[in-house]
């Protein structure tokens, strides 16, 4: 019993880390641009597919392929901001949200046309699992790396936002754009950084997700809907909240299904049941401030 519990907790932590990598970008983008980047999940798919192109089709080693794929995803993320979100930055937040929905279906369709609807594998190799605690815990190398990377990136992001000049500028612009401007901070630069960082995190999530599962054009949607609910769960715009919400969802999925409390067919509903229950108790999110108006 305890054996399976350890394994389930580990699986939950890995899923939680992958969700967190996506959720962090979403929450940062929401914090600064005040809309939900619906196409953020597609950046996961872009990261995974470009990695597959370099690693499997062009036979590059893992590290250069990963760097190239991360670079391309960042460039695409920044371009999307410049081309599609910047022109409507001062509009009603519904407009960028709808544009993001359009981008999401457009990018999915492009991936489908380029790579076909079939499920692809990210690599020709298969890697042996490591065994820990006398076989109580099996972990693949990609799971271990995903968890380590997620934790390191979270700490890095935290330090970046709190300690560096650029991070402080991003937080200032997020909390009040016009006052930030008065103090000579560039909204454009902060936006670029936020979309860049968000894309970097999702590209990494995409590569690991590709190793964990497989590649399919809709792979981004499945993880991004979980990330949406993680972000809302923790209070949208909050970094701590997004991390907490992601791990909560990862662990809840893994434990509830693994221990047989919820039938496996219902897995996809779990994040949202948690979300809706939580919103009934604390409509402002777990890490949200009370008495703050939620009106946009």
């Amino acid at each position, binding site marked *: 019993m305890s054996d399976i519990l350890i394994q389930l907790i580990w699986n939950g932590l890995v899923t939680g880390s992958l969700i967190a990598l996506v959720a962090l970008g979403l929450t940062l983008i929401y914090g600064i641009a005040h809309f939900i980047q619906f196409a953020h999940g597609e950046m996961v798919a872009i990261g995974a597919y470009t990695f597959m192109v370099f690693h499997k089709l062009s036979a590059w080693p893992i590290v250069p392929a990963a760097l190239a794929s991360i670079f391309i995803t960042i460039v695409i993320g920044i371009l999307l901001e410049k081309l599609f979100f910047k022109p409507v930055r001062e509009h009603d937040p519904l407009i960028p949200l709808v544009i993001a929905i359009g981008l999401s279906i457009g990018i999915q369709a492009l991936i489908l046309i380029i790579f076909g609807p079939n499920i692809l594998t990210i690599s020709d190799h298969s890697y042996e699992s490591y065994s820990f605690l006398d076989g109580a815990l099996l972990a693949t190398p990609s799971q271990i790396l995903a968890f380590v990377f997620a934790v390191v990136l979270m700490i890095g992001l935290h330090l970046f936002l709190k300690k560096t000049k650029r991070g402080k500028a991003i937080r200032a612009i997020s909390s009040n754009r016009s006052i930030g401007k008065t103090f000579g901070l560039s909204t454009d630069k902060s936006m670029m950084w936020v979309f860049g960082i968000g894309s970097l995190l999702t590209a990494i999530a995409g590569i690991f997700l590709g190793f964990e599962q497989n590649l399919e054009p809709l792979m981004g949607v499945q993880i991004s809907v979980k990330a949406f609910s993680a972000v809302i769960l923790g209070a949208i715009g909050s970094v701590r909240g997004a991390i907490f919400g992601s791990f909560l969802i990862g662990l809840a999925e893994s434990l509830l299904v693994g221990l047989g409390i919820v039938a496996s067919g219902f897995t996809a509903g779990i994040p949202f049941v948690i979300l809706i229950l939580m919103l009934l108790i604390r*409509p402002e999110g777990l890490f949200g401030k009370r008495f703050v108006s939620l009106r*946009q």
Partner: protein
Amino acid sequence: MLEYLLSLLILTTIWTLLTQSYNLSFGLTGLFNLGHIIFYGIGAYTAAILNTDYGLQILPNLIIAAVVCGIVAAIFGLLTLRLSGHYLAIATLGAAMIAIVVATNWMDLTNGPLGIRGIDGPILFDLQITESWQILLLFLVIAGLCQWTLYKIFHSPFGRLQRAIQDDEIAARAVGKNTFLSKTWSLVLSSAFAGIAGAMYTHYRLFLDPTIFALPEIIFLILMIIVGGRGNFWGAILGTILVVIIGEIPRFFGFPDSIIGASRNILFAALLITTMFYRPKGLFTLFAKKAT
């Protein structure tokens, strides 16, 4: 070719009603409820189950579907309408995800992913309607009545109150309006009409499976209302017709079947983004004399 055209017209009639019902809660009251498709699905399933298990025909099914959807919407509203903005959007999107999971797994009720087959076509007082043009005529009458009712709602004091809530909820509250109750009513009415559209769909398609709740359907609905113009009665109709026509374009270019869906989505994405850039209020503004 004629059959194809008729089937397209029938579906357009159903979708126009669905979009118009969404226009009430999303367009007029401004509830960004991404879960509207739930009520279309519940209406469809209600009609399918009543027909296959209890032998009820289209007319009682339409009414029962509307009532069931209205009741579910009232509960749904009590749970979610305290939220606003993006919180409401994601919570209701989540509700749609839960709906698809339930419809897939509750085998006894919905027959799961296999779907419900063998549904009767429209039967009016023992008179079986089989010809497509007759079905189209019947649906035009039903949808026309619903559209007329919705038009009346849009231009009633209740409709104006909804618009006021969208513009400034606090001001509406300040003049003594119970906005929570009005929002719930808007959701209930809008969902009831969505249920009618769902029941019509069931009795036309004669087959139903859980994909009716899926994300592409949600996006399709958003597309129709945003492109036409939310909050405007004619905008919803224009949007639906435009989206249906544009969605059929790839069929005529001889694309292989595997990428028809994808090329359609690219067209839809382009349509959505250009509309947002140049006519954020919707394309009906191209025809309107004054901006409303």
